[in-house]
């Protein structure tokens, strides 16, 4: 078998200054087994069209400049083997910028929104330190490990531009900024825990707008696992006692109330408990339709009526909740 493969590589082309619409161009080349996506981009530029534009710098997976998407899959071009991708997508690949709507020229996007959000979470240690310290500010291995792998982020934007919540809601901070917020909040030298939790728990912009799709975990080339850090920020709000009672926090805490009563989630009660009686009007239309379809029953939400199935050995569940619960709303 030959060590190279002859393929047509497609690339998204667009120049915001001269083009009304983007277009796709094809470039035929022999791809070697050790070539990276970055090599393919270099070859398009060097062998086919010198105007093809993309960001690149370190070639070692550390500067975060060369993040693009291939067939919708976020990749760091200098880490991603090209043949692996060709195998995955049946030899039909299209190089795309991380965000088509933010494209400036070909693979280059305006990453301003990414940096604004990153800056908004105070991505640095806030501490009142002696300007002339006598000894270094040490961290134990355990203290360092508490940051988990959040410190490995290279700000490439792979997770940020893979996040569907951000695609819909421009105000959402997104996985990269929230992972950075966790990284500094979890640092024992930092003194801005409350301030940063306050920034990250606002509804509409903060952690409660995460849709839990795990696209960020899948996208990250450094295995930062941003959604895990978002989860930790959720937990920290309750641990630090700064969580405010709202529809999102009651929804999280309301699970305990249901499970303790039934073992299962009481689907009607969780909506009522999270929204409050006043918030229920939004759900009446859907509730009526569900009623008609036999999904729910007319008396489900009435007090003293219990239609919810019960787990067998419910007493075990209740006991475990009593002895294991660590947080409060």
């Amino acid at each position, binding site marked *: 078998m030959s060590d190279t493969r002859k393929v047509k590589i497609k690339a998204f082309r667009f120049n915001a200054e001269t083009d009304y619409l983007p277009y796709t161009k094809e470039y035929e080349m022999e791809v070697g087994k050790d070539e990276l996506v970055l090599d393919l981009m270099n070859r398009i530029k060097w062998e086919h069209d010198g105007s093809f534009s993309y960001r690149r710098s370190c070639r070692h997976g550390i500067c975060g400049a060369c993040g693009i998407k291939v*067939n*919708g899959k976020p990749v760091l071009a200098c880490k991603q083997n090209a043949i692996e991708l060709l195998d*995955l*997508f049946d030899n039909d690949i299209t190089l795309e910028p991380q965000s088509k709507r933010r494209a400036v020229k070909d693979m280059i996007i305006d990453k301003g929104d990414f940096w604004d959000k990153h800056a908004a979470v105070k991505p640095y240690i806030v501490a009142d330190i002696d300007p002339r310290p006598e000894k270094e500010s040490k961290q134990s291995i355990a203290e360092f490990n508490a940051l988990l792998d959040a410190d490995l982020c290279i700000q490439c934007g792979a997770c940020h531009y893979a996040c*569907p*919540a951000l695609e*819909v*809601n421009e105000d*959402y901070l997104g996985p990269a900024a929230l992972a950075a917020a966790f990284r500094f909040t979890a640092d024992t030298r930092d003194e801005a825990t409350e301030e940063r939790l306050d920034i990250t728990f606002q*509804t*509409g912009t903060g952690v*409660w*707008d*995460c*849709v*839990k799709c*795990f*696209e960020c*975990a*899948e996208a990250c080339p450094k295995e930062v*696992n941003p959604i895990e850090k978002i*989860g930790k920020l*959720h*937990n920290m709000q*309750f641990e630090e006692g700064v969580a405010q009672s*709202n*529809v*999102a*926090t009651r*929804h*999280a*805490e309301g*699970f*305990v109330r249901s*499970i303790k009563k039934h*073992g*299962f*989630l009481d*689907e009607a009660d969780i909506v009522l408990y*999270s*929204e409050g009686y006043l918030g229920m009007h939004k759900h009446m239309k859907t509730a009526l*339709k*569900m009623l*008609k*379809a*036999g*999904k*729910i029953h007319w008396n489900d939400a009435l007090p003293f009526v219990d239609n919810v*199935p019960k*787990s067998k*050995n419910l007493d*075990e*569940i209740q*006991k*475990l*909740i009593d002895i*294991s*619960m*660590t*947080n409060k709303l």
Partner: protein
Amino acid sequence: MSNLHYALFTGCTAKQSTPELLSSTLAVAEKLGIEITILEEASCCGASHLQDFDEFLAHVLNARNICYAEKLGLTMITICNTCQLNSAMTKHALDTDADLKARVNEKLAEVGLEYKGTSEIKHFLYALTEDYGLAAIKDKVVTPLSNFNIAPFYGCHNIRPGELHHSSNGNENSYVPKSLDNLIDALEGHPVDYDSKNKCCGFHVELQATHTSEVLAGNALVDAIDNNADMVVTPCPLCHLKMDTYQDDLGKVVGRDVEIPVLHMPQMVALALGATEKEIGLNYHVQKATQVFSEATV
């Protein structure tokens, strides 16, 4: 009879708002000779929301659920992607962190249980495609689904994060998932290829970020419809609820009519295997879907 026997973790929705999911799952198992023991002791998996509130408590409760499958010496199967994810996350956390496992077991000992890590956890979709096998399913088809273009909607929590699921989902690649397409193919339906098939339905932020949730689910339905789908099929009851019960609202948000039946994966299989109308339970859908049963046999 096949020699397959599983412990079924039903989850909450199959016991409440989607009874059709449970009845169709049991019908499929019966048609294929798969033995099912329902874990009646199991509690809610926490659905990621309990995890947001109290991660340790969520691990304890999920470990307890798994204990009951271990006691039976069976693989635990799930019929909800979110149950699958949260159960698998607890298993992974306990199997890789001896200290956490010890702390969880200390609590479980109080109710006479011990988590050992001996049971696998997999979604029913992969029990069908990986364990039973597509060729064997194809042999059992009595009503080929050849009248339908079927849009597979995979649901995030079966395919991401990849490394958590790879031991149970046949190495499905989350960017190019194939299991559901292959299953549709085995039932002689026509799988619809569309970009949204591996995207998020927005269910988990339905209450606090309603607009985000509706745009995501609405866009997915538009994409399926524009690619000529007659129905959407999903292995996750939460995706089903989002896309079925809220379909009117989704249409308003995306400014388009998005009327389309959204079937649970086991309903589709049950239909092809000749289960009864009652077992398939299309009458429990909010968006009218009962016509699918008669259309299948035309």
